[in-house]
């Protein structure tokens, strides 16, 4: 590697922004083609290209950080700001769904029967599976903190076990949510109740799946000795994301499942 007299990361030219942009073009055009001509070829092509781009781009970032040592303190600072801004944007994304929910539920229109939950809707009991889900996510917040402290103290075995436990709790949550969806007495087509319920909890579920994947990548990296007790930002970003998902669930539980029933 060439000698450089500063701490910043001068990145190599990368093809992934281009392949990612084309993947987005193929997926959006593919969606329109699917709607009009019932062919999913272009959309599938775009999805494969997106997955290939994601794999190789993030693989390169691991190479740059863990194997080439480019993630110096000022570079890590940039990564931290990036992750904070990303999570902030996610907060506003969910704020929109809460806005829709409260707009509809605080002053229910005559068409809904002037009440919330609307006439004819039997909501889920918040003290059955949703309460268990709350406990599962809170427990996973504990285990991810246990994993963080294990990494910081160089406790390799404990870090692997607690991280694996966190991911298992994430999968348990997803499985319980899938079961709830299957058993729910209303659908996404059942007026504004169904729409706000399934869009908000559905996007949350998607975020749980993404967070579990992020943590699973961290588990594989931990097994392969990528994290040191001083430098493990990839894990920290995953933990921040996981806590964010956890907090969104608490708001969903209190607002939509509990107060909204």
């Amino acid at each position, binding site marked *: 590697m060439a000698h450089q007299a500063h701490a910043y990361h001068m990145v190599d030219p990368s093809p992934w922004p281009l392949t990612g942009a084309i993947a987005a073009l*193929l997926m959006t055009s593919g969606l329109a083609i699917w709607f009009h001509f019932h062919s999913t070829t272009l959309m599938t092509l775009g999805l494969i290209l997106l997955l290939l781009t994601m794999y*190789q781009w993030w693989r390169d970032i691991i190479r740059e950080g863990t194997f*080439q040592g480019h993630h110096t303190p000022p570079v890590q600072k940039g990564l931290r700001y990036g992750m904070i801004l990303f999570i902030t944007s996610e907060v506003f994304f969910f704020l929109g769904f809460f806005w829709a929910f409260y707009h509809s539920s605080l002053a229910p229109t005559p068409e809904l029967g002037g009440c919330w939950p609307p006439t004819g809707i039997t909501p889920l009991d918040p003290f059955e599976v949703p309460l268990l889900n709350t406990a599962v996510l809170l427990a996973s917040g504990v285990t991810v903190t246990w994993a963080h402290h294990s990494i910081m103290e160089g406790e390799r075995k404990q870090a692997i076990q607690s991280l694996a436990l966190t991911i298992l709790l994430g999968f348990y949550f997803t499985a319980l949510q899938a079961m709830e969806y299957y058993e729910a007495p209303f659908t996404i087509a059942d007026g504004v109740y169904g729409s706000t319920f399934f869009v908000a909890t559905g996007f949350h579920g998607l975020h749980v799946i993404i967070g579990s994947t992020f943590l699973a990548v961290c588990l594989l990296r931990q*097994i*392969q000795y990528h994290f*040191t007790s*001083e430098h493990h930002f990839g894990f920290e970003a995953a933990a921040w994301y996981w806590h964010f998902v956890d907090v969104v669930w608490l708001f969903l539980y209190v607002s939509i499942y509990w107060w909204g029933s």
Partner: protein
Amino acid sequence: MYYKFSGFTQRLTGAVSSSAYSPQGLRSNIPSESPTIIFATPTKLVSESSAAVEYMGGNKVPDLQRIFQASDEIPVHLKRGVPDRLLYRTTMALTVGGALYCLVALYIAAQPKNK
């Protein structure tokens, strides 16, 4: 105006012109060769240092660091050799082929039968 990198605030600050010739706060009478980057390796207890007791496999990070830090001017996405090139070419072929296919599909979609 000249700038230098402040190790305390981690950002650029103003500096006198001479510092442009000795950046990073290096003093001019010291050779400007940067120190070799030191990577922290995971802390290991003495009892764990023999390969037999490694929990879930051994540490290959130092070997990978050697591979990826080789000065051969190869960009990071191709540094691993044949598997990297294979994956890169597949992705690029899909990108170019997909973009062309997409343009054709959109052109056809823009020619409705019932004008």
